[in-house]
């Protein structure tokens, strides 16, 4: 059939046709080249700036270098929070083997817990710049470090990075006051500048470490580097060195702190020592403590559960948050309130029986001394800690003047300047009771408050603050931890009074009340007469806080009472009482008798005023910088 057609073929016409088609094709080629050029024009001329920016964003990466954290020193230059180099095992997932193989090859070299792997896998799912490393195991031991370093060449994408970590040389005695740093969580990042904390390992979680986070942290170094697609740094374009965090010098005396902690013995409790001349916290102990280094290292779930579930509440900062009845330590303040509002005077006498009644046949408010104290005056009521005197005084005054007067000393509010999380305790009032219980304030409520019991709750730092204000004869300083920041005096801005004067109608009453408190020690019937025999004068006041209310006719019998229901033992004191340098509050939970906190306070006075420390505290001398 093909052959048949061949006869009629017009070759000239066919050539013209194919030639025409070639021309059409040529036009088509030019058109399509035009399309490509238009596309290139769009990308390279019209969108040039966009893509130039993109290329620069690709190429230039900001690398932050975490600054060394400021150190925390005590008043003598002993380092309480130090920086130490550590080595961490990090993985660049893009370069490393797949997870199962990685696990297998690493397990033969270094011990990595399931928790570490779980955390690694969760970080793997979060947004991350490609080729950015993830920490798999922080703080390798020297042994692990050398092992990994030897075998590192076999493991693609696994490396050892050196970083600075926090170290607390003195551990548990300082844990509550200094606080600790821990790994940064996403919650932490919400309140800080994310960029600044990029690459940082730790953030202050509690105590001074938390409150002074921004001061201690410093300013990270930022370098602009040129990176390749694998995230490897090719060159540095610009560099800004990190500014180290500022060092803090505390008022705290490390020896005093450790001594106070040790003196609490096996008791739970708190000790707060304040310099009444400036409000500086010389010691702030909450016992039991815990090893803050655990949190730096990354505490395991089991370790944390053990601390959290411990019945002795080691994680609870008793000094700032423990709510206790101030008990008889309130009496000097209550006495001043009576004088201030004309409900008592130094000369008036009172017959103290073994109990006090609002109405005849009413409830008997018992005195600690069964038979009563007989004829007494205000001074003797302090010396012998006469309960019935204060029952009647508080009953006469009612709650409102008590509330007004005690709040001047910082009761009922959180007054520490530079620590977060202090509880405000409870200084009750009419309004409070109405709001809380929908009941009016009863006279009986006042009676209990008269001896620092009943509704009244105070924290050790509050009682210590009031004590320091008494020592300073009304010149009240709010308590503070930090004395100097990088050598400059610390500045406190966020309070309504770094210090203020409590004015009495008769300012001589300060001195008279201090005299009465001196006699608590020096008088032969003083409740703290066991502290006699010092070269300096101590003013003090004992207290025993009821944990357990006795019925009217019951007798407190320590021997037959569960230890958890034993009275709390309290003591406030300052010395030398003429020009006090130190004011101490101590509480032994369930300590029974106030002799324990009184002895502790005297030991601290001896130590602080006359450097009489047991020999074992000499190591703090050596640690001074």
């Amino acid at each position, binding site marked *: 059939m*093909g052959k048949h*057609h*061949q006869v*009629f*073929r*017009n070759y000239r016409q*066919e*050539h013209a*046709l*194919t*030639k025409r*088609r*070639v*021309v059409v*094709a*040529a036009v088509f*080629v030019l058109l*399509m*080249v035009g*399309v*490509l*050029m238009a*596309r*290139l*024009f769009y*990308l*390279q*001329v019209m*969108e*040039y700036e*966009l*893509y*130039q920016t*993109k*290329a*620069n964003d*690709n*190429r230039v990466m900001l690398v932050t270098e975490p600054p060394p954290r400021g150190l925390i020193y005590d008043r003598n230059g002993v380092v309480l929070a130090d920086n130490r180099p550590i080595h961490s095992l990090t993985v660049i997932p893009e370069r490393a083997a797949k997870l199962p193989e990685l696990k297998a090859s690493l397990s033969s070299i270094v011990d990595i817990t399931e928790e570490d792997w779980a955390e690694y896998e969760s970080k793997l799912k979060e947004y991350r710049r*490609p080729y950015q490393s993830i920490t798999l195991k922080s703080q390798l031991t020297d042994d692990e470090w050398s092992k990994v370093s030897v075998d590192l060449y076999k493991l693609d994408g696994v490396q050892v990075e050196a970083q600075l970590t926090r170290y607390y040389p003195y551990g548990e005695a300082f844990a509550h006051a200094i606080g600790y740093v821990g790994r940064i969580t996403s919650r932490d990042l919400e309140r800080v500048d994310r960029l600044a904390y990029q690459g940082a390992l730790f953030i202050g979680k509690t105590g001074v470490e938390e409150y002074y986070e921004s001061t201690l942290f410093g300013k990270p170094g930022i370098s602009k580097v*040129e*990176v*390749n*697609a*694998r995230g490897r740094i*090719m060159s540095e374009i610009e560099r800004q060195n990190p500014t180290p965090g500022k060092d803090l010098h505390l008022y705290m005396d490390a020896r005093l702190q450790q001594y106070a902690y040790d003196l609490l013995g096996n008791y739970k409790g708190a000790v707060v020592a304040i310099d009444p001349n400036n409000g500086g916290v010389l010691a702030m102990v909450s016992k039991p403590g815990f090893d803050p280094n655990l949190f730096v290292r990354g505490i395991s779930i089991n370790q944390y559960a053990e601390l959290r579930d411990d019945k002795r509440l080691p994680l609870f900062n008793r000094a700032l948050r423990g709510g206790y009845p101030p008990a008889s330590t309130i009496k000097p303040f209550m006495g001043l309130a009576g004088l201030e509002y004309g409900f008592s005077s130094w000369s008036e006498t009172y017959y103290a029986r073994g109990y006090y009644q609002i109405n005849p046949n009413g409830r008997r408010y018992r005195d600690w001394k069964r038979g009563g104290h007989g004829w007494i005056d205000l001074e003797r009521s302090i010396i012998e800690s006469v309960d019935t005197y204060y029952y009647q005084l508080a009953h006469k005054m009612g709650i409102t003047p008590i509330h007004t007067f005690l709040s001047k000393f910082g009761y009922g509010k959180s007054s520490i300047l530079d620590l977060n999380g202090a509880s405000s305790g409870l200084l009750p009032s009419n309004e409070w009771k109405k709001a809380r219980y929908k009941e009016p304030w009863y006279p009986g409520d006042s009676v209990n408050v008269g001896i620092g019991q009943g509704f009244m709750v105070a924290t050790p730092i509050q009682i210590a603050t009031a004590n320091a204000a008494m020592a300073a004869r009304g010149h009240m300083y709010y308590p503070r931890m930090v004395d100097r920041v990088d050598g400059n005096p610390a500045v406190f801005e966020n309070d309504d009074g770094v210090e203020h004067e409590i004015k009495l109608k008769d300012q001589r009453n300060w001195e008279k009340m201090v005299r009465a408190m001196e006699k608590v020690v020096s008088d032969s019937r003083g409740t703290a007469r066991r502290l006699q025999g010092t070269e300096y004068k101590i003013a003090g006041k004992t207290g025993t806080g009821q944990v357990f209310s006795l019925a009217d006719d019951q007798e407190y019998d320590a021997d037959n009472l569960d230890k958890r229901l034993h009275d709390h033992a309290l003591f406030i004191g300052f010395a030398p009482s003429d020009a006090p340098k130190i004011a101490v509050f101590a509480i032994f939970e369930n300590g029974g008798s106030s002799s324990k906190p009184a002895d502790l306070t005297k030991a601290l006075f001896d130590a602080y005023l006359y450097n009489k420390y047991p020999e074992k505290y000499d190591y703090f001398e050596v640690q001074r910088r």
Partner: protein
Amino acid sequence: MSWQVYHRFIAFTNARLWRLTHVDVLLLAALLILMSGGLFILYSASGQDVAMVERQVLRLGIGMVTCLGLAQLPPKYMRRASPFLFAVLVGLLICVLLFGVGAKGAQRWLALPGGLRFQPSEFMKIVMPMMVAWYFANRPLPPKLKEIITVLVIIAVPSLMVAKQPDLGTALLVGVSGIFALFLAGLGWRYILGAAAAVPVAAYGLWQVMRDYQKQRVLTFLDPESDPLGSGWNIIQSKTAIGSGGLHGKGYLEGTQAQLNFLPESHTDFIIAVLAEEFGMIGCAMLMCAYLLVIARGLYIAAYAEDNYARLLAGSVTLTFFVYMFVNIGMVSGILPVVGVPLPLVSYGGTSIITIMATFGILMSIQTHKRAR
């Protein structure tokens, strides 16, 4: 250019030496310009890897030998061999589908003894237009419907077999090389318009048979930003490289996208992005001019070839060469899907250099074996 110089130039191109050696000197010159430009870019794209450039020079040399060798073979022998070559290649493609070897789930090669590999689909790019040209050589043009259908079957069978391997890029080039021959044979415009109208329907059909990774490529193409670290990475980075080059470029060896490895496959499929980044739009225009020189000479040879077979063959291989370039630059600049087509004679490696140079050998043969008029 004075007349004297022009006449000397024409005389040079028509010199006896070239006629005897069957070299088309203009095509050769255009190819050498393109190749040297390509090597220049490759040096930058390979990260200044001299060894890689040397290997490419070797490949181009082998391609040039193939080209000049084929130029000695008169077109009439090619024509006679066309149906046999086609039959053999279809047979080999069947073998590939049955016992081919390959990587990443694609079977493209036949293993030969001695560890060598052979990729039949690559040769189908040449043999396909030869077959169609042969089919029309003894038939009057323009083709009738029955002939058109026959040719479409001839085109479809190997194209689909290659697509099944799967190798979309090569299948596309095999298909278009046949279609171009059909077009040059004078395929009626109504058929062309009808086919254009059928494209959307065909696209839907194609979607149904595409492999997941092919569909993924299409989806990535439509919205590359949706997976910037995964499948969209290549195209985003190549667009960034091109766009950031601007009009003048960042300078030779100064492209940050290419030199810092942000640009993937920078020495193979995405090499044009290196040029675009370092020499800007001006550099791209110059490269395109080099391509146009080659294409123009190819189309000239086609237009003035001796018979229908030669015209159809010369025209379709030239246009296929153009499609190579167009698809590559189109995909790198983000207007076509990423189908894995190299930039001809510029991208590093691949069998494609040999087969492309073979087509230029055919062009030279067609041009230099004409009987003198």
